[in-house]
């Protein structure tokens, strides 16, 4: 039995014993099962199982989708740098990036299918699209990009030790890999748009002055901010995961210069993002919001969602990590690097949270009140299911596929 | 010969099987054929009784449409058996004498969410019954109704097809917004 197991693992690298591995995945499987049960309830009994309501029409799941997709942006951006800009150092993490991207996007799509009231009508969006809706853009791009990610995942799959014994697989992989730049290009294009339109999702809500932003052509400023922030968060998240995996598996996975490089990329983008974000916020406070009859300070008048959130988002989770990542010396020390990356991811999460949750909590009708919302256990379970699914897929991929090509050389 | 092309042959075989099943078997399975409870002949009623469409299928004063007439409309003439056919007899003592409504199968029942105004099409658009209902008015026998087993709609592509409505409305410049025809 262990033989069957080892014969499917890549040669020249050491992996935990089957028993250990089983002990590792079992709790995650349990979590997944529990989550699927919760999601099942929502599908069978309807969305009354959630704590969403007519006022909080979007809840935990949308927050999850936006965050997860931002973190998954590493796949497209690394691919973009590797295949288009020929940054070959990134070969070391591209496989891992692709797998992470695939996990994030498939997870998000799964969550969305539970989130909609009539999943059986999912194809209506493709058949009767309202091309003016940001959500249409999101739906189209994400479904396309998920396909792309799947195709990018195939070569990694085919390089599995058992698979590669079939010559035809190897040949197909070889030919497909030669065309990877094309896919990377397409992926970049798609990601560019749906990351943006995810931002647009709220930016276009002209009737929600807290979220509404002026913009360029049909795209509000959040469109561009989301692209930038996602591009910044993606590498940071890859950095984080790579570090985490090598901690858990207790072995070096990439050469020491790779993570700082990721950090640097993230840092540069993050700085740019934060600057633009700050400008955008100022414009919003001084022009956009007052023009619609709302003084911006009113939005922060409701405890506990005070202005401190804005500060934390921009300074603590933005400026600070950006500066850390841009200092060569700090970058070189793993603790600084990793914690900075962590902050970046937190920053993205905060930004998405503010946009999705706070927007809905704030009153727009003058005689209305601030609302609170706490996800039900079914919602949370579904949320956790996505996480568990991610961990499982990644663990299996890490065990049986070559996610970090350099690991082999470093292991000796 | 077979051995060397085994792969292709199997593949094509599979495809062929699927095509046959998909085009041949599937529709037969999907649609349930509901026979009509009574052997009704529009022809006889039109020729022998000289009935016109709107003798039985007429508009009410408020513009609503009666659709298929109720039993009392039938028993209006069929108080006594007309003719001696077995079918007539069956019809009489199964429905008329027991005063039970006839469970007609409707070919063209509109979905609950559709607002189809006969009066608009008749009085304002001046459409003739035949333009939609074809030669049903002259038919000698009523065929069975086809009911989609999944969607539970009495499927008659001509009637259950929004595009057909939309196209005609577009050509004639009639209202084409959702709630113009939905409720």
């Amino acid at each position: 039995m262990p033989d069957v197991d080892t014969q499917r693992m890549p040669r020249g690298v050491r992996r935990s014993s089957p028993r250990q591995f089983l002990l590792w995945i079992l709790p995650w499987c349990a979590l997944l099962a529990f989550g699927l049960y919760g999601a099942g309830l929502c599908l069978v009994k309807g969305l009354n199982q959630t704590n969403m309501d007519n006022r909080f029409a979007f809840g935990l799941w949308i927050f999850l989708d936006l965050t997860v997709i931002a973190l998954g942006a590493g796949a497209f951006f690394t691919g973009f740098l590797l295949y288009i800009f020929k940054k070959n150092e990134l070969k070391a993490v591209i496989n891992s990036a692709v797998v992470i991207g695939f996990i994030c996007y498939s997870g998000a799509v799964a969550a969305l299918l539970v989130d909609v009231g009539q999943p059986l009508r999912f194809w209506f969006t493709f058949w009767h699209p309202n091309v003016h809706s940001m959500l249409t853009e999101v739906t189209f791009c994400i479904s396309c990009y998920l396909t792309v990610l799947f195709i990018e995942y195939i070569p990694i799959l085919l390089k599995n030790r058992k698979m590669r014994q079939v010559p035809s697989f190897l040949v197909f992989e070889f030919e497909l890999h030669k065309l990877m730049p094309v896919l990377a290009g397409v992926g970049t294009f798609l990601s560019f748009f749906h990351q943006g339109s995810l931002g647009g999702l709220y930016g276009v809500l002209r009737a929600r002055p807290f979220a509404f932003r002026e913009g360029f052509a049909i795209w509000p400023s959040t469109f561009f901010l989301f692209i930038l922030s996602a591009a910044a968060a993606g590498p940071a998240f890859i950095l984080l995961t790579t570090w985490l995996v090598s901690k858990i598996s207790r072995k070096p996975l990439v050469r020491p210069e790779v993570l700082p490089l990721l950090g640097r990329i993230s840092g540069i983008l993050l700085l740019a993002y934060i600057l633009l974000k700050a400008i955008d916020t100022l414009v919003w406070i001084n022009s956009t919001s007052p023009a619609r009859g709302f003084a911006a300070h009113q939005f922060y008048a409701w405890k506990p969602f005070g202005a401190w959130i804005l500060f934390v988002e921009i300074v603590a989770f933005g400026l600070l990590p950006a500066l850390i990542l841009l200092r060569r010396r700090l970058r070189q020390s793993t603790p600084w690097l990793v914690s900075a990356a962590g902050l970046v991811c937190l920053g993205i999460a905060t930004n998405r949270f503010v946009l999705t949750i706070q927007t809905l909590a704030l009153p727009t009708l003058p005689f209305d009140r601030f609302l609170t919302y706490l996800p039900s256990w079914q919602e949370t379970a579904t949320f956790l299911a996505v996480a568990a699914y991610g961990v499982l897929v990644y663990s299996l991929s890490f065990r049986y596929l070559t996610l970090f090509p350099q690991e082999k050389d470093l292991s000796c | 010969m077979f051995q060397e092309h085994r792969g292709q042959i199997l593949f094509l075989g599979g495809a062929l099987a699927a095509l046959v099943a998909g085009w041949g078997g599937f529709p037969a399975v999907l649609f349930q054929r509901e026979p009509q409870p009574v052997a009704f002949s529009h022809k006889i009623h039109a020729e022998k009784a000289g009935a016109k469409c709107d003798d039985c299928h007429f508009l009410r004063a408020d513009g609503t449409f009666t659709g298929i007439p109720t039993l009392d409309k039938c028993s209006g003439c069929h108080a006594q058996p007309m003719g001696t056919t077995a079918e007539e007899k069956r019809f009489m003592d199964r429905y008329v004498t027991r005063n039970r409504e006839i469970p007609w199968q409707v070919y063209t029942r509109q979905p609950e969410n559709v607002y189809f105004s006969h009066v608009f099409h008749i009085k304002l658009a001046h459409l003739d019954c035949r333009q939609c209902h074809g030669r049903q008015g002259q038919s000698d026998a009523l065929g069975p109704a086809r009911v989609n087993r999944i969607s539970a709609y009495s499927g008659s592509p001509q009637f259950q097809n929004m595009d057909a409505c939309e196209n005609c409305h577009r050509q004639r410049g009639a209202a084409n917004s959702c709630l113009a025809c939905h409720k």
Partner: protein
Amino acid sequence: MNTTSSRPGTKPARYGMAVDLDRCTGCGACMIACAVENNVAPAGPDATPRTGITWMRVYQISNGAPFPDSRAAFVPILCQQCGKDTPCAAVCPQEAVEVDPATGIVDQMPQRCLGCRYCMTACPYHARYFNWWDPRWPPGMEKTLNPDVAPRMRGVVEKCNFCHGRLHAARDRAAAAGRRELLPGEYVPACVEACPAGAMVFGDLDDAASEVARLARDGHSFRILERLGTEPKIYYRTARPWVRQAATQQRKETANA
């Protein structure tokens, strides 16, 4: 004379409503009439004020003064039928929402709706409602459903459409009389008909002669969240300054902890 057909050559209508807040006593007749007319199901046992469906919803507002100077007013909120870049119509991913050029009514198509609820986040009036449950009526009560309005299924969004079933019925009656056009007053939503105080007036805003158009021009009339620039078609009217204030000015106090 207004028309509800989009035939080229005939003038389309722009239906709107004027609500006199000084007459409204908050009795809720409009809500009941609306729910009865539009086949809204009674709430299930575990429905909350925020999960139930009330196309027409009466809010109580107060002048904020403590005892004994408190005064109250009531604001019926229904879909405001926004006429310019209608927020909900713009965001729906699959054209389940549209603005009918012939009537100016914002159509919501439950049969097309995916239930993504994006339109609900877009609506500033919270006038859109989601079917969190399968619609359920007490045994036998489904006999009282209005045949002119299709009950909605679970998992879709719905909202006020100015009793479109009544518009259909009115059109049928007109057509039966050989008319393509509706006479003023031939079509009136249930809430307007039911209001015992006569606080609501309905009609074609483009018809300068109509009562509703006159009230819309009235100096005491205003629209809620007018500055969002969505051109709502529901006008509110009050001579009491504090009521207008409370209905239009964003609250200052941070009354929650």
